[in-house]
């Protein structure tokens, strides 16, 4: 067992973990943060994507012991995040989800590509989303939703979105 100290969704957490415990299992089984989903457990499907120090990471491939002194944000950690609020509304409005299993990680990836200005065209969104698999929708409505969210955020009525993001991943 190794003692780790980290921040999860803004809260300080201390735990003793075996070296082989994945970050995904740590979040799901020890923190009860079940919005992080496991679809393949070998880094292919993207359903377990979380933010580690503000960057998207596959939590099935990250070990909990490697997250000592780091900052983790899961889908449960975006309550005050304007960018995520806009994305959620867009996914709802444009029917960007069916069974909902890929949805939390799809949102986290979508938020990251808007943040990096990678949601300019349909082609760009599809390329950037290649690491997140959805078996239900055929992606069309997911791409439409991200495009709509990006446009809304760019239109200026979400001037505080950037500041909120920095707060969320600080």
């Amino acid at each position, binding site marked *: 067992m190794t003692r780790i100290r980290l921040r999860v969704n803004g809260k300080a957490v201390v735990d003793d973990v*075996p070296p*082989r*415990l994945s970050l995904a*299992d740590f979040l*799901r*089984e020890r923190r*009860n*943060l*079940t*919005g*992080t*989903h*496991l*679809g*393949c*457990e*070998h880094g292919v*499907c993207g*359903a377990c994507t979380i933010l580690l120090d503000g960057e998207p990471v596959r939590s099935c491939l990250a070990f909990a012991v490697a997250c000592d002194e780091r900052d983790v944000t*899961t*889908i*449960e950690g975006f309550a005050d995040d304007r960018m995520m609020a806009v994305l*959620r509304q867009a*996914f*709802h*409005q444009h*029917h960007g*989800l*069916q*069974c*909902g*299993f*890929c*949805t*939390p990680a799809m*949102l986290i990836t979508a938020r990251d590509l808007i943040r990096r200005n990678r949601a300019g065209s349909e082609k760009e969104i599809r390329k950037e989303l290649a690491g997140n*698999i*959805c*078996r*239900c929708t055929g992606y069309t409505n997911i791409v439409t939703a991200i495009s709509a969210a990006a446009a809304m955020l760019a239109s200026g009525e979400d001037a505080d979105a950037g500041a909120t993001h920095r707060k969320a991943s600080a």
Partner: protein
Amino acid sequence: MMHAPSSTGFGVGASLLRKEDARHLHGRGQFVSDVKLANTQDVAFVRSPHAHARIKSITIPPDAEGRVFTARDLPRLAEMRAVPQVNGFKVSGYPPLATQKVRYVGDAIAACMAPTRAEAEDLANSVNVDFEVLPAVIDAAAALTTTPSLVHESWANNLFIERVFQEGNLDEVARTADVVVRRTYRMNRHVAVPLEGRAVLAYRDHRLDELVVYTSTQVPHIIRLGLSEVLGLEERNIRVIAPDVGGGFGSKARLSPEEAAIAALALELDHPVRWVEDRGEHFLASTHTRDHHYRVTAYADARGRLLGIDVELIVDGGAYAMWPNGPFLETGMAARNLPGPYNIRNYRVKTYTVATNKSPIGPYRGVGRPGACFAIERTIDEVARAVGRDPLEVRMENMVTSTQMPYTTIANLKFDNGDYPAAVKLCAEAIDLPAIRARQQQGEPDGRLIGVGFACYSEQTGHGCGEWVSRGSPFIPGYESCTAQLMPDGTLVLLVGIQSHGQGLETTLAQIAHARTRH
């Protein structure tokens, strides 16, 4: 049936935002593996590394006592027996945990239980199974003539069932046809891969005298019936809960051995027990599908008009018949849909549903029809080639026309309306076929070859009671029941049998209720 658009803005035809979105968008959906019950233990299965082998012995380390369960430790767990009402179907038991033999790679042998899945996998790795490896049946087509071994020893051969459907006079057609085209087609095995794998969590509720089984399934009521059969319990003593289900595509529509084994295990324990499938297990041991071989002989006149087709259809059914319907559903669907939307009045299909040492097959998107569609559409193209005409013209000339509607196909499927040749023509115009043909003539600058193909498919719908009877379903889930409770505050509560695995039923069933109850 066509519905007028909703006049109230809520009923059938209205475009509504979904009720189920909010929880998923906030990561608060509840899939089986998200359900937390105190003292739950995780299970990993010991699975066969061999396609076909006799189990000589199973050695469990002394310190694993009480944590490793084989079929012998679960005496209440009977074999799953699919008994479709189809003449000539050979019934075989499917032991949820293998007893004398393993019959496919991934066949479960023992359930290993520990506080975490990782520890359960350690335990599974510590169990030693001594196998006597047997010749494996891997080629369903070859297995018709040479049998390396018997998958089920009590059978005389490896056929689940052999059937012939014949209509018209194919012998006469064979004598008079200008053109005979013989081709073989093959469609490979598929696996469904819903993003959420299968998962089961079970425990005993002593107050209600119930075995409670959370399972990621498309058919909770049918699973309850299946569990009652294999566990020898009355249905009222079993509660099956399908919470949010992360896709199914057919693969969660049969009683799985893992569901049966976990439920049986829960009966022996004083705490909850769960199994969450990993992706490797899904590829190996969930139901597979397709794996069709077609040998098609098509008879046509000099213009390419089809006079008849004579087909041998071989479906690789895998090792066991999945409860309740078995593998013939796949074969029957393919045989019925082979004539496609074409005027074929002479048809013979010999079907062979073969047992092999592969994962059992089950339903998956389209059940049998994709293979049939592929075979007939390729045949149309090959006939066109044989008579030297454009496949598009030959295809349109062979199609059932709008003036023939309503039309009953030779395989007894009814087309109520439509204009198939017009639909094909529309497609050809949309892609500017003459321009593509010209481009093909010209050749690509980089030497690539450009192909163009057309395929037509008419989806079979309205699977009512009669349809299920014709398939030999051992029970009839062709009608849906609903309990509606009007509450004192004026709200309506609907209890329904169908399960959403992404279809948004919480929204759409409310729409139907709105339309049906409003005056």
